């Protein structure tokens, strides 16, 4: 969809109204603004085109959903990958649902997908947008030009998956004026944050913290690409000065930010715990999450930085210490690719064609004799006889059920132990309740489970993404019971932060 709606609009806008003196400088600014304007067009376009959808969709504010989508994608851009398509759709759903609560969930999802697909612009081969605008050249001739841009792009991820990334244009549309110096911008944001927190203005503090996180993401992204470059060709990068300096700088930056953000974290935690008003408390809690995420990203960045050194040495061994050959070869990048790319495509295509014609090798042409073809087509399909001997029917012997407890007993024991996370109970109480059912074995099972929970398999539950975990603690109280002896354990349920753990896990791998 290179929407005709706005490409057509662009030209009349230009011809109408008074125009500043057509100097190249004035035109430069104008065309920049026109391009910035074009970046917002796909968003407006969504609201224009929603009327054409099959169904009554005017109730949804599409531009709002689109901005939220770009927001989510930017925030979820990780080191190696981008944001997951389905994840973004899922996270968009609450907002879409809030706009039309009475509509079915399937429709909400459809809207979220439609917005996301239109931001990618699935329909076009480039998967991007094009706007036409006009400029005056240095010679005073009016030229119409094509401006191509993307908002969300799809990038290859690990194992052939496709991830989403917000482009620079999208980030600029989203937060604006982000093309400043990353480091200083972040410092500024964080100083602002500290001031805001100390003055207790949490609403503003959250905004600043979120902006700080955008910058953190952007910083991490640029560093990732630089590190990738150092892996490419040892000679391509100055490993004597420039890269070590850069790595040292980045490590300093990480250390600095880490200290800084931990300080902020302590401050906000204090603010959170001391806040009386629930709204403030909630804001502060959200802030804690954001700053934690910043710290997580910094740690991730640091581990990548530490990998760079060994990688360089391995590549150095491979490339620099090999015996030099007497012959000189063609420098494919320097002598072909680099001079070719700036050429107009009309000319460049001649070079690539020549390379293609001579660089693809040979193909033996297939030629078919009609006689063979007739034979082949008339041959009946071969009976498959090589399937092997027939499998004997396996003789299954029912193993006797020698379990100590039955399934029903386990179910009722689990029901007993299904405790509210904020209301732990004593083992004695649980035992009494188990005996009330009249099944003497049930109490035994409950006791066993409680003892088992004394050392809960936290690691396993963590790996399996469990939501809750049974635990028991000995606080020194003696159990007074006719059947069992020992400590009167406190049995409770702990809630696990499954989402947070999943995030940590991806980070660790």
């Amino acid at each position, binding site marked *: 969809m290179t929407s005709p709606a706005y490409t057509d609009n662009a030209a009349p806008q230009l011809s109408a109204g008074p125009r500043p003196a057509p100097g190249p400088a004035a035109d430069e600014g104008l065309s920049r603004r026109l391009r910035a304007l074009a970046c917002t067009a796909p968003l407006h376009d969504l609201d224009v085109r929603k009327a054409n959808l099959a169904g009554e969709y005017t109730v949804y504010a599409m531009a709002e959903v689109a901005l939220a989508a770009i927001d989510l994608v930017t925030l979820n851009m990780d080191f190696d990958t981008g944001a997951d398509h389905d994840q973004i759709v899922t996270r968009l759903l609450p907002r879409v649902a809030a706009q039309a609560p009475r509509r079915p969930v399937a429709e909400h999802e459809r809207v979220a997908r439609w917005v996301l697909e239109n931001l990618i612009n699935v329909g076009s081969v480039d998967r991007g947008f094009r706007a036409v605008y006009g400029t005056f050249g240095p010679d005073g001739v009016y030229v119409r030009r094509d401006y191509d841009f993307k908002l969300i792009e799809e990038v290859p991820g690990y194992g052939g998956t496709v991830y989403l990334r917000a482009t620079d244009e999208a980030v600029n549309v989203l937060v604006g004026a982000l093309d400043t110096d990353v480091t200083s911008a972040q410092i500024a944001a964080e100083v602002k944050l500290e001031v805001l927190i100390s003055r207790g203005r949490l609403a503003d503090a959250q905004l600043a913290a979120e902006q700080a996180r955008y910058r953190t993401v952007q910083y991490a992204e640029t560093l990732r690409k630089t590190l990738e470059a150092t892996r490419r060709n040892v000679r391509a990068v100055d490993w004597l000065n420039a890269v070590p300096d850069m790595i040292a700088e980045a490590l300093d930056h990480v250390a600095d930010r880490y200290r800084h953000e931990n300080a902020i974290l302590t401050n906000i935690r204090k603010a959170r715990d001391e806040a009386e008003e629930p709204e403030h408390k909630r804001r502060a809690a959200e802030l804690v999450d954001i700053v934690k995420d910043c710290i997580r990203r910094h740690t991730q960045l640091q581990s990548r930085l530490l990998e760079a050194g060994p990688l360089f040495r391995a590549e150095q061994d491979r490339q620099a210490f090999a015996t030099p050959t007497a012959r000189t*070869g063609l420098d494919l990048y320097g002598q072909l690719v680099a001079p070719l790319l700036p050429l107009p495509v009309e000319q460049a295509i001649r070079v690539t064609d020549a390379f293609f014609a001579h660089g693809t090798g040979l193909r033996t042409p297939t030629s078919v004799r009609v006689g063979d073809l007739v034979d082949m087509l008339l041959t009946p399909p071969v009976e498959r006889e090589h399937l092997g001997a027939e499998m004997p029917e396996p003789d299954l012997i029912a193993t006797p059920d020698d379990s100590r407890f039955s399934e029903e007993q386990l179910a009722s024991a689990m029901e007993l132990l299904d405790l509210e996370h904020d209301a732990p109970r004593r083992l004695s109480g649980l035992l009494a309740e188990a005996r009330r059912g009249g099944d003497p074995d049930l109490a035994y099972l409950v006791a066993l489970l409680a003892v088992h929970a004394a050392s809960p398999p936290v690691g396993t539950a963590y790996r399996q993404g469990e939501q809750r975990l049974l635990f028991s603690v000995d606080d020194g109280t003696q159990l007074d019971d006719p059947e069992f002896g020992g400590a009167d354990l406190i049995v409770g349920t702990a809630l696990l932060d499954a989402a947070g753990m999943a995030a940590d896990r991806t980070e660790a791998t």
Partner: protein
Amino acid sequence: MSDHRAQHVDAWSEPTAAYTTEGTGPADPVVPAATPPVTPADAADAARLVAFGLQPKLLPARDAEYAELLRRYREEPAFARLADAVATGLGLVVLEVSTRAGMAVTAGEDSVFAVRMGDYARRASSDSADRFLHGLAHLAVAAMAFPRPEDLADDAYIGRITVNGVDSFVRQACHRLEERAEEHGDNTDPATDAPGLEAAWRIYARRSSTGATKDARRLAGSTTGIVGKAVAFLTDSGFLQRTGDDAGGAFRTTARYQLQVRDMAGSAAMAELLELGVVPVTDGTATLLPPPDADDLELAADAGLPFHA
């Protein structure tokens, strides 16, 4: 390479002897009886050797007959000349005959064995942007496989590439040009009515690098799709070997690919470039050089590869 050339020198110095043998018969006392005349059986063997060469994935080490014919080629100049003649008659160019590369032949221009862009990718015949991208993908694969001139010259070098790596390599080079144009204050947006004048890098930069498809395959029109097609084709040509599935597919080069790029494709493309009046001058050192000043490593967004041509 050296093997082949050396054999040729021998081959050309001997023919007088070989023909004398034929002409004057075994009775001639000057000619040693060890050089037998060329028989139809020899011609069949020579043709068989060329036929082996037409199966680029076949390795001499895996086939005793192939290895034996190669030995004959190297040891009998007359047989070598015969095999060369058969290849030439079929419209093939002999690149090298050795145990590592086998009978490395490639298609001459207009040969029936030549690969045509229209057969390679259907869209490429109608759409010049696609045609360019397919050609550039092949060039980029080669540039990535042999990043330094030494690598291309060194017979023992084995290049390793991944599909995503090639894509990001070209993308970075394009980005670099975009930045440079911005520094100069050039407006690179092409005029609407003259798409042919659009700079080549923009075509690549504009195309999305991947895309989700309904059946989880690579989007054919995306740049990774185009690079993926190129490496798959080169693998079929016996030029690359698949080594893994990381980063869109990992591959390593074969001796044949190095020969093909070094002796055929590189020079052909270079000649075309020179004809366009572009004369890239280098002194044989790597062009992927460190920036002149360290400030250039400034972390501008996306500036991953510090390219300096």
